[in-house]
């Protein structure tokens, strides 16, 4: 409450700005790997932005949550922290940040705009991938080319292969360790093999549409390091969206191999995750239907329906039901945005 009160006053002017949201969530306590959600949980996201001029910005995204998903240092942490310089064509970003791929997490602080919880694909990227490095992009006449060189993320790939896909908004924080099996953890901060990873993307933006291709390669060596196991993961994503009036169509499809080496033997798993959603905005609410298809060691599908009330003001009640392989998860949530 003190944070909310301070934030509302801190936005009175000047180059420093606070933003964020707090949520209280209730669910039916689904207990499968894919749909796991506590019966009652809460999260607080705070964004701090400093922008003394339009050419320069600094951003920090902080998170506190009641459900740590049995992770080490899972209750509090830094989600993103970066400096940014930009002009009309070029943007440089340095620090820890989400890669610019998602067609769902399009609100500030990587908040999903159409549903309460994201697809399996973006749940995975939010839970296990956070480039810590430098991103550069060039945009001209609707075309964008971007590239990222980063450290960390050596264990990227462990979650879908070892633990299994999930559909939840557990954004990994810097220094957090998330268990993938009884013996090993994954951490976006893990830099064990001293090999930088890289990513490249290209996008075309039209009047109502966007298409983007992204390649990710963490160049992991696939070897164990104490309680962390490196995975060598390469992943390609094609994403697109189209908006017309109150309707939005969005879809992403990702695929690629992930390997580890056990006692000199290389084991490779092909990862695949896709979704397609259709969303319609009404004067006071939004309704979205999303279909997911994802595969690592097993092949699963899910269907999600979300209903978000969007009255004027700061509150956003929401309702979401997801079914996957015979299991069902129901979420009711109250979200308060302060900015």
């Amino acid at each position, binding site marked *: 409450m003190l944070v909310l009160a301070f934030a509302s006053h801190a*936005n009175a002017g000047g180059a420093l700005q606070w933003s964020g949201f707090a949520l209280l969530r209730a669910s039916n306590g689904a207990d499968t790997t894919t749909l796991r959600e506590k019966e009652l949980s809460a999260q607080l996201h705070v964004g701090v932005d400093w922008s003394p001029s*339009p050419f320069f910005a600094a951003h920090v995204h902080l998170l506190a949550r009641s459900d740590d998903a049995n992770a080490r240092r899972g209750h509090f942490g830094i989600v993103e922290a970066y400096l940014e310089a930009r002009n*009309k064509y070029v943007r440089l970003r340095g620090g820890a940040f989400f890669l610019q791929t998602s067609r769902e997490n399009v*609100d*500030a602080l990587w*908040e999903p705009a159409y549903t309460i919880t994201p697809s399996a694909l973006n749940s995975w990227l939010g839970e296990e991938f956070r480039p810590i490095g430098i991103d550069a992009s060039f945009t001209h006449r609707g075309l964008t080319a971007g590239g990222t060189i980063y450290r960390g993320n050596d264990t990227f790939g462990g979650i879908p292969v070892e633990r299994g896909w999930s559909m939840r908004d557990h954004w990994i924080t810097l220094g957090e360790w998330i268990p993938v099996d009884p013996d090993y953890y994954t951490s976006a901060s893990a830099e064990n093999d001293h090999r930088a990873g890289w990513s490249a993307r290209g996008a075309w933006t039209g009047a109502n549409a*966007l298409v983007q291709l992204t390649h990710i390669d963490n160049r992991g060596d696939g070897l164990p390091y104490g309680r962390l196991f490196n995975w060598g993961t390469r992943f390609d994503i094609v994403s697109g969206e189209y908006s017309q009036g109150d309707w939005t169509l969005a879809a992403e499809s990702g695929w690629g191999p992930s390997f580890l080496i056990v006692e000199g033997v290389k084991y490779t798993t092909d990862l695949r995750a896709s979704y397609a959603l259709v969303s319609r*905005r009404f004067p006071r609410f939004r309704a979205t239907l999303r279909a997911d298809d994802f595969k690592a060691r097993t092949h699963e599908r899910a269907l999600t329906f979300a209903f978000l009330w969007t009255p004027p003001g700061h509150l956003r009640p929401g309702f979401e039901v997801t079914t996957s392989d015979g299991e069902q998860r129901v979420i009711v949530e109250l979200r308060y945005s302060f900015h």
Partner: protein
Amino acid sequence: MTRTLPLLLLLLGPLARAATVNVTVRDARGGAVNDAVVYAVPEGRELPLAKKSAIMDQKNRMFVPHVLPVQTGTSVRFPNSDDIRHQVYSFSSAKQFQIPLYKGTPANPVVFDRAGVVSLGCSIHDRMTAYVVVVDTPYFATTDRKGRGAISSVGAGKYSLRVWYPDMTTEPAPVPLTLAASDNQELVVTVRK
């Protein structure tokens, strides 16, 4: 009716004496150039700053309209019609500004008090771009998909017709215009695009 007709003539008289300039903007291959701003700058006389207002909206993560011409001195509001947040900024020399992250409509409009082209962006959504074209005249129009723009209600006199379009590298040479009352001129301007 007897009293109304003179009143109507009095009110509509200036419009009846105003000229219209219909401009078609084409590229070197003859293709239509849409979203070009065509504007007539009066020669030999300065006009007072406008005390008008305009709106640049944000819908579906796009600025609407993509190109907004305004007269110098116009206040522009930036309502956010989306259900997500935006952070509008510009680093153009004609007007540098940034509006902190927001939903709804910011309390204060931005006054564009200097002629020039202002490129807009959103810190959250890289694909959002737009232009506010600030001109020293109230006589302007934006071309449509056929490359046509109609500058209406122009008073008689001498003018310099200018053209601006997105990604322009070299401004086309101004076209001198002499307008009489009630003129209706058609012009075709070819630009290098």
